[in-house]
Each structure stands twice: as structure tokens, then as C-alpha cells.
């Protein structure tokens, strides 16, 4: 091969790998990202059933009900609107009523409670998930600094 051909081979190989990566990233960004919603967003934007979302807010006081085994039901609120959530599994250590929480999952069908497969609480007692803090600030019920 001449010098020019060698260079072309290397550049061609490089461009094809990068093109493949760009396509993968674009595809994944369409399919695999999860939007964050507050309970009010859920009501206003009519999130379709089966769409994975992250739902964040405060765990409503008095809403936590433990069912059979590791089933738990609770409500996530931003004080304006409230969404009921079902979850099966172990709750994080810092999951408490009146505290911030982010859950990930989907509505199985319209009108049914939200089914979460992941519940994220915070890493220490002074910390509030940022998305939750922001959406509470929007609603004017933020009590932190």
C-alpha cells in the first residue's frame, strides 16, 4: 500500500467507529433517558402509561402503609398535587415521611397508582435531592436555605 492508501485506511476506520458511536449515542439518548417530573407535572403533562419517569417530591405525612411482606404504599406530594406510589423492596435508610424522595418507575395504566422499582432517598440527613428542592422552590413551599 502507498502512504496515501495507508492513511486513508486508518482515517476510514476511525471515521466509521466514530460514526457508529454517534449513532448509538443518538439512539440511546432518544430511547434510554428518563425525565424527571413533579406530581404537578404528572397531572399537567398527562404522562402516558408505561413511560418510565422519575417522580420527585416529599413523602406525604401519614401516607406510608406497609402491606404484605416488603410491599409499601406511600404518596409523593409537592403540596399542590399528590401521586400514590406502590413499591416492593427495601426502602432506603433515610426514607421518611415529610422528607424528599425520588422514585423511578411507570404508571401501569392511566389512573392507577405509580409503580416504582427504584426509590432514592438521600445520603445524609441535611441533603435534599436537587430536583426535588428545585421543584419545591417553584411551588413556593421550600423551607431550606
Amino acid at each position, binding site marked *: *500500500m502507498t*502512504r496515501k492508501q*495507508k492513511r486513508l*485506511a*486508518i482515517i476510514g*476506520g*476511525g471515521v466509521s*467507529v*466514530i460514526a*457508529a*458511536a454517534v449513532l*448509538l*449515542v443518538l*439512539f*440511546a*439518548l432518544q*430511547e*434510554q*433517558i*428518563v*425525565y*424527571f417530573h413533579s406530581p404537578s407535572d404528572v397531572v399537567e403533562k398527562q404522562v402516558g402509561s408505561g413511560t418510565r419517569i*422519575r417522580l420527585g417530591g416529599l413523602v406525604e405525612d401519614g401516607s406510608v402503609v*406497609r402491606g*404484605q*411482606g*416488603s410491599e409499601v404504599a406511600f404518596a409523593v406530594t409537592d403540596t399542590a398535587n399528590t401521586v400514590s406510589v406502590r413499591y*416492593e*423492596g*427495601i*426502602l432506603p*435508610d*433515610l426514607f421518611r415521611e415529610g422528607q424528599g424522595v425520588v422514585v*423511578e418507575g411507570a404508571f401501569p395504566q392511566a389512573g392507577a397508582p405509580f409503580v416504582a422499582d427504584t426509590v432514592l432517598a438521600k*445520603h*445524609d*440527613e441535611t*441533603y435534599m*435531592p*436537587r*430536583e426535588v428542592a*428545585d421543584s419545591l422552590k417553584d411551588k413556593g413551599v421550600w423551607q431550606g436555605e
Partner: protein
Amino acid sequence: MIVELGHYALIMALATALLQSVLPLIGARRMDQSLMDFAPAASLACFSLTLFSFFALTVAYVTSDFSVVNVWENSHTLKPMIYKISGVWGNHEGSMLLWILILTFFSALVAVFGGNLPSTLKSNVLAVQAWIVSTFLLFVLLTSNPFARLNPAPIEGRDLNPILQDIGLAIHPPLLYLGYVGFSICFSFAVAALIDGRIDAAWARWVRPWTLAAWTTLTAGIAMGSYWAYYELGWGGWWFWDPVENASFMPWLAGTALLHSALVMEKREALKIWTVLLAIMTFSLSLLGTFLVRSGVLTSVHAFATDPTRGVFILGILVLFIGGAFALFAMRAQTLSHGGIFAPISREGALVLNNLFLTTATATVLVGTLYPLVLEAITGEKISVGPPFFNLTFGPLMIPLLLAVPFGPLLAWKRGDLWAVCQRLYAAAGISLLVALAVIYFSTGAPVLAALGVALGVWLMAGSVTDLLTRAGVGRAKLSVLWPRLKGLPRSAFGTATAHFGVGVMVIGIVAVTAFSTEAVTTLRPGEQTTAGPFALRFEELRPNNGPNYTETQGRLTVLRDGEAISQITPSKRIYTARRMPTTEAGIMTTGASQLYVALGDETADGGTVVRVWWKPWVTFIWIGAVIMSLGGIVSLSDRRLRIGAPSPKRAKTPVPAGETQ
């Protein structure tokens, strides 16, 4: 008093670093030896002052001096001594001080071991390093002073975040920072070379040991962090594609690419411009990681306290160094001469392929990490990019790269013979296929992909053994000379083979735990049983227990195999008294390379306890693989060629070792 001295020492360090940023540069331009000699002396002084400052803060922690705000916020008299010491860097201010300590440590190392560097290059490198030191010292002194006092002093401290009260805190951050910050030396070398406008194979030979050292510790640091998160968080996962993990993983990927491209530059004087660019990018990613983790734009256990001024300051540092380095690069890159040419099928070609895949993979991780931040800044829409994104983008890029790994070291420089290499790898390929069939045969219902994944790991392991054997001359030389020839191979050959072997071990661990682990959440009352993998677990009791600064509820479970008790697992839920904060301590039993992992949940109304049980076959291979990779780095570092430093370019053309001739 010692606290004030520590603060003062830090200010003195800043003054020294500022002088060190300017004087050696002038010296290098004017060829003034006395000004250039200032650089190593200043580096050592700066390191000593920072070390003293760090020592002063440690003393404040050890003696529980709560008149220091930082100690009051993060310590407690009842905290065990090891956490008092490691707690020094278990907070924002202290961890930044550790950052700077390691930064000055590396510049002191260059000052001490850089005797064979040309004096202008050494001066420039140390000056550039001092720029970084100065900006970070300014950052600490202006926005994150660890020595701020509190009056009146409280009687008791607020204790360290319980998640951090673990031996992991003593090991993970120092190792991680050694790697993370170690890449600053490569950056300084690159910028110094650009200032000089001159770069050659000898440059690559000086840079490689630093890259290797940083890479080795970063590998160990990330692995340690992964294992820590695995057993501490009680989620049973070893990698979450959390932005904070990505922040350390991106410099690792770029650093791995740098390690390989510097090899091409050292041996063949090719890829010069690319290697310099990669050195700049690697440390830029370290800085970006520091920004992401420390500024509070991300929410994680690593973002200790969020203060907007800090974020803006680090962003300023980021723009200054990355922007400055790239501007310099754009101005000077053309002046660097081009190196030797090579065929696409050659050792160089394989290393270019490695770089192509690794940098593309770095870019996908970067996109996944920054996209949510950018999208929120532009549209206000909040999204999260989780594991599915990375599995879909990063995964497919890694598979061809890993498949190609065994070919690389077997190809000759300049022009390789792919067909001959394939023939040498027949045995490795055969073994991998047999293993794939065995996996399908023995684990009923194993997905074919899992079998292929395990085979990929075996392929990497067998490939690295093949590499060593081929170099020793198996199949061409007599059996009696094989052993002496194997022993005579350069240490770097062993290092390469060991590191690639480690990748294989890690791949097997990842595949096994992804495909074969089982997970169950059940409610157990005392005496009840559940099964996990080949074991049965009997829940015995819940009992209260007291630790030095916590109280806990400990579950006791007996592990049974074929009805016989073989071990006990004691997971617990702790409440740390000072912060009233609960944590989960997982119970882990290791058998062979596999682990049984038990986490406790809440107690139910009917007297049961929610228990989450994972059976994780071969999971420890993930971290063992990483440790083997680090060992490979250490073996490579001990190579004679790196120990005695860079010879003149003429002597760089060493005779080609056996096995590379073709």
C-alpha cells in the same frame, strides 16, 4: 496554635508556588541556571509546607479540637481513631487539601527523580505544575479554608457522615487522588513541551512512567471505591454509572489511551501531536471530574457541602487550564515534527485502534454525564441518564476493543503479519470456545451471550499467556532454553501481559454477576428459611448491639449447605447517635470467588423482617481483575528501562526482543 501555623504554612506554600510559576520559566528562556535551579528547591519547599499544613489539620482532628469549624462539623470524640485520621479528607475542605498535597508531592517527585531531564524541560514542567498548585491553593484559602475557627468552641462535634465511617475512606480517596492528580504531571509535561516547541521519543520516555504510576493508582482507587460502594450502600451493585463514578472513570479511560499512545511515541516517534493532546485531555477530564464532584452541580455522597462560589471558582480554574492548554496546543501543534509511518496492520496500528476505541468510549461517557446538565441549563427539562444509556453505547464499543487486545502485543512494529498472529492465537481461541461450550453445558439455561462473555474473558487471559510464551519462543526454540528466555524478557512485557490478563479476569466477573446472580426479597420470621444459589439461609434472630458511636439491630442468619450449618451472616441496621442517622451494613459471606450478600430491611407488623438476599457468583473477579491490572502497572514500572530513565534518542533503538522479530 498548630492550627494557625498550618494556615500560615499554606499561605507560605502559595507564595512559594507563585514564585515557582514564574522564575523557572524566565530562567529557561534566558538559559539562566540559577533561576532554573530555583524550581526543584521551590517544589520541595512547597511540598514540605503543604505537608505541614496537612499535618496540622490532622492534629486538630486527632485531638478533637472543636474550635476548628471543619473538625466540629466532621468529627466526634467517640469516633474511632482511624476515622478521626481519615476524616481529615472526609469533607470538602480537607479533601481539597489532600488534592493539593498530592499535587505538590508529584512536583517534589519530579524535582527529586528528574535529575536526567534536560534542565529547561524540568524548569518548564515544574513551573506549569506550580500554576496548578497556585490556583488550587488560592481556591482553598479563599473559598474552603479548613482552618477557620469557631468561637466559643462547642463541647462535642457533629460527627462524620456514617457512610464514610469505614476503612474505605482511609484507602479510596488517597489512591484515587494519586491517580487523578498524578495525571497533572503528564499535563505539565505536555504544556512544557508545547512551550518549548520541541518533543521527541525521549519526552515520551519521561512521561510514560508518570502516566503508568498515575494509571496504576487510579485503577486501584476506582476498584476500591467500587467495592466500598458495593458493601456499604447495601444495594448490591458494583457500578451505577453515577455521574460521580463517571468523573473518575473518564480520566481512567483517557489515561489508558495515553499509556498506549505514549508507547508508540517512545518506540516509533509517531503520534506525537496526538499523545500531547491526550495528555492535556486526560488531566482536563480530571479537572472536570473535580468540578462535577466538588461544585455541587451533581447530587451525590461526594458533594459534601454545596456553595455556589466554589463551583464558580473551580469552573474558572477549569476554563483557564483547559482553554489555555488547548489554545497553546492550537498555536504550537504545527511546529511539532511528524513521526515515522506505519502500515495499518502493525503494532502501531493496533495501538491506534486501542486509542480510537478508548477515546470514543470516553466521549460517550462524557456525553451521558454532561447531557442532563446541558439540557437542564438550556431547556430547564430534568432528565437522568442511567445504566441503560451506557450499556447501549459504552458496551458495544468495548467488545471489539477487548476482542482485539490479544492481537496487539503479538503484532510486529511497522508492518505486522495478521495471518501469522492468528495462527499463534489458535490455542487461545480454542480454549475460549471450549469454555463457552462448558458454560452452556454446565449451567442449564445460561444465555448464549453470557457464555460468549465468559469466553471473551478467557480469550483475554489466554491471549496474554500466549503473548509471553510466543516471546519466549514456544514452538520455535528448544524446551530447555524457554525458561531462561522467559526470565530474560523485559519486565514491561510481563506488565503488559499481567494487565491484559487482569482485564480478562474482570470481564469474567462482570459477565458472571450480570448473567448468573440471583436476588430475592422475602420476609422472614425467626426460624424461617430462604434459599440463595447453592445455599439455604435460616433467620435466627434480631438482637440489639452497641458500637463505639452507634447502636445497631443485628440480624443473625445461619448459612446451610445440604442441611448443614457452615457459616453465619450478620447484617445490621445502625443508628449513629450524633447525627441520628441510620445506615445499612450488609452481611457478606465469601466462598471461593463468589459472595452471598444479605441486607436487612424494615420489620413488618407480623414480627417478620424484610431481608434482601443476593447470590453473586464470581463477583470478586471484578475487583481481583482490577488489582491484577494494577499489579501489571507496578511490574511495568519496575522495568529497568524506566528505572534508569531516558537514554539519548540514539540508544532508544534497543534490539528487538525475541518474539517481536518476524
